[in-house]
């Protein structure tokens, strides 16, 4: 980098945004104001300010991605707090844990050098998590994708997603011995399809789409046998059509995507409530606290984008989309600057996770594509989502630093 990016000015702007939106919350709930409101305000500002400051001292990598994410997180927490103060407070705790895990993941990438030699482990962990979900999973909102460990609900697919990126990076950019196996790439496709098939069985269509997206993107860049790209796309089309015919839950998504209005009271309820909220907001929104995001089911989770659009307007909605675009752009830039192929693919994969997931859920609540249940990374409420997203970000942060080509296999 010729010119070091100065992250001080945006850090101050972020600070300003938080102060402003927090004062709006204070104004809105002046009468019923509680100590926890102060707690959330002070906690949020301090946490974000100091973690940015720390990162600036520790890492010589790209400190912008963390700043972008802090903006997303701030919008998210403020909205969640406005919908439900309890959840807002909880989300703040998840954020604290998430930032801790961010640093942990960052150091793990920085100081551990054998990530590219763990292919078998990635496979075992992935299948293990799937098995765990199938055995212990509980059904929420139609999908079996949660397991409960010691009273804490975890969504294993969130973790598998990251493991998948490691698996693909290790295959394409790591140890060559796996690529020398006969028909290695076809075997890899079968493994990935088995993941997607298992997600289909769990009715977790959103995750299935992300897995497919990450794989297809990386396959497009790195496969030696270009015919496989077409094979992959062809199989996806066949699989999509078969899924539509075989599974009612897929059919419902498509029907309510094409025209939800006749089903406004049952299966089209969610998407139409989302559209009501977005249309209510207009350009500037109704104002924080002056809309009715509680009308949207899961407004703090899958539909947080609609809730934000209602109260902060589509200008903020567009802002969020642009923040994700910037995040993906920075992620790809990190990848292009990274000389080590394994870490390059890791950076690409993580950026694609953020990009594809945010596209699928925002596109879903806008009715641009069929709706599949997913969280909006960093913005939606949820421990699993926040913590794993920050782990992924920590990995991206780690890959933004220079790595020697030596010591690690490169392809």
């Amino acid at each position, binding site marked *: 980098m010729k010119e070091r990016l100065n992250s001080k000015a945006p850090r101050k702007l972020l600070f300003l945004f938080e102060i402003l939106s927090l004062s709006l919350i204070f104004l809105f709930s002046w009468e019923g104001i509680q100590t926890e409101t102060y707690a959330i305000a002070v906690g949020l500002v301090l946490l974000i300010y100091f973690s940015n400051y720390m990162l600036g001292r520790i890492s010589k990598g790209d400190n912008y991605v963390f700043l972008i994410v802090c903006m997303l997180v701030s919008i998210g927490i403020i909205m969640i707090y406005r919908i439900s103060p309890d959840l807002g407070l909880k989300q703040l705790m998840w954020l604290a844990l998430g930032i801790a895990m961010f640093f942990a993941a960052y150091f793990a990438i920085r100081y551990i050098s054998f990530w590219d030699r763990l292919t078998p482990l990635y496979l075992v962990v992935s299948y293990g998590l799937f098995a765990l979900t199938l055995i212990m999973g509980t059904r929420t909102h139609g999908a079996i994708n949660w397991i409960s460990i010691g009273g804490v609900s975890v969504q294993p697919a969130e973790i598998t997603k990251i493991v998948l990126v490691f698996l693909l990076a290790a295959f394409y950019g790591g140890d060559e011995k796996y690529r020398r196996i006969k028909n290695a790439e076809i075997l890899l496709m079968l493994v990935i399809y088995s993941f997607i098939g298992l997600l289909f069985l769990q009715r977790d269509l959103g995750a299935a789409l992300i897995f497919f997206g990450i794989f297809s993107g990386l396959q497009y860049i790195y496969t030696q046998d270009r015919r496989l790209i077409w094979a992959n796309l062809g199989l996806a089309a066949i699989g999509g059509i078969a899924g539509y015919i075989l599974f009612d839950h897929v059919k419902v998504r498509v029907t309510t995507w094409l025209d939800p209005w006749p089903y406004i009271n049952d299966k089209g309820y969610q998407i139409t409530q989302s559209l009501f909220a977005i249309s209510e907001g207009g350009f500037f929104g109704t104002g924080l606290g002056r809309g009715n995001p509680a009308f949207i089911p899961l407004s703090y989770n899958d539909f947080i984008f609609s809730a934000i659009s209602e109260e902060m307007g589509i200008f903020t909605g567009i802002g969020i989309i642009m923040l994700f675009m910037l995040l993906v752009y920075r992620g790809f830039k990190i990848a292009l600057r990274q000389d080590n192929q394994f870490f390059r693919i890791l950076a690409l994969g993580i950026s694609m996770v953020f990009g594809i997931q945010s596209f699928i859920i925002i596109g879903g609540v*806008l009715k641009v594509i069929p709706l599949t249940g997913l969280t909006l990374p960093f913005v939606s409420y949820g421990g699993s989502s926040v913590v794993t997203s920050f782990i992924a970000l920590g990995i991206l942060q780690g890959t933004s630093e220079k790595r020697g080509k030596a010591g690690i296999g490169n392809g």
Partner: protein
Amino acid sequence: MDSERKRIITILVALCMGFVLLIGYLSYFQMFKAQAVRDNAYNKRLWINEDNILRGSIVDRGGEVLVYSESRDGETQRIYRYDNLYSHVIGYSLKDYGKSGLERRYNSYLVNANENTAINELINLINPSGVGNNLSLTLDHGLQKKTRELMNGKKGSAIAINPKTGEILSMVSLPDFRIETLSENWTSVSENPDSPLLNRGTQGLYTPGSIFKILTAVGVIQEGVPEAIYQCTGSTVIDGYTIRDFDESGHGPLNLEQAFAVSCNTYFADQAVALGHDNLLRIAETLLFNQKIGFDTETNASVFPRESIGLTDLGASGIGQGRVLTTPLNMLMVVSAVANDGYMSMPYLVETVQSPGGMTISSHRSESRKVLEIGESQALKRMMREVVESGTGTNAGINGVKVAGKTGTAENASGNNHAWFVGFAPLEDPKVAVIVLLEEEGASGGRAAAPIAREIIKFALNNITN
């Protein structure tokens, strides 16, 4: 650049395009679709606003208050001063059953949610008011009352319009319903086989019968054969099927003008066949068939068959039978264009929207399009005058005023004919155009509908000055 870099950038571009697509769609949605979504009766937010805001009032062209809201013991109440007189125009606004009419279309104005522009929104954020905006209509309360009286006991619709501006002066559809008690009587009203909830004037689809001959006549004029002499024998055989005249003895030799005055079926059926389906379809679609008329309340599209039809059907279409269906509003617009020298001024009900403080927030932008050549409209004017002067429409005649019009008696599945009259006056400088439809009246248009139209025209010319 090596191929890996290139491919990475391809994927990046693809992802960015995805995001740009989302931004584009979000903006498009907000600008063009949000309003309709917001007005959906299932949107719970409509009712939230309702509870906090005193709904605006609606006044007629003279300032007479037709409906307003007031606050009683902390609850807002909608007062319908003339209740069923405006049941289809103003419509209802019920928590359990949604909204209709102007209450629905202008809901966001009436609850002061203003138009969705950035500036208005900012103003609203800074200065929210607890009172909704008011609507000022083009309707004349006196004429509305008169029209309703004349139509009393009938089934059907009557509409009066200013053909030059498109202002709707009165609009009645019967049977109607009482808005104040609609909530309690919802089931009996909504399931009534006579469909009182339907605004027959804008949504009812009827066989037009002879009033459709106006469109066939346009075709004859365009072909340049209005003077050609036709021999009427009382019936004509088209493709093996006989179309008969009312009077089977035959009208003898006649040209377009004479055939129009006596409403000769055989003449117009044969002319329609000579014109062909394409020509007739083109004329009908120019005159708003097969499209929804943009209006302040819900409308349905009139129907002229698009796919090619058999010659018998084509002949029947030429006299407004067969598969042709029209809304009364549509045929009124056709005649209003004839009256206005070929220019159709699109119909509207709401002249201005005013803030509680009396400031005009939005006013109607008139839209006029040329649908007939001046030669065509002049010929039609003359012919329609002839109908009232000496043809089937003499019952619409007024002493000292030159009324022009066309009668229609439409056969339909019920066995009882629809009676139609559509016309305008005065001939030299049309100030009002009127359509009267009596559904399943079982009498001819000239006998049943024309006298009602006459009274509406007389009242309008005498009482509406501005």
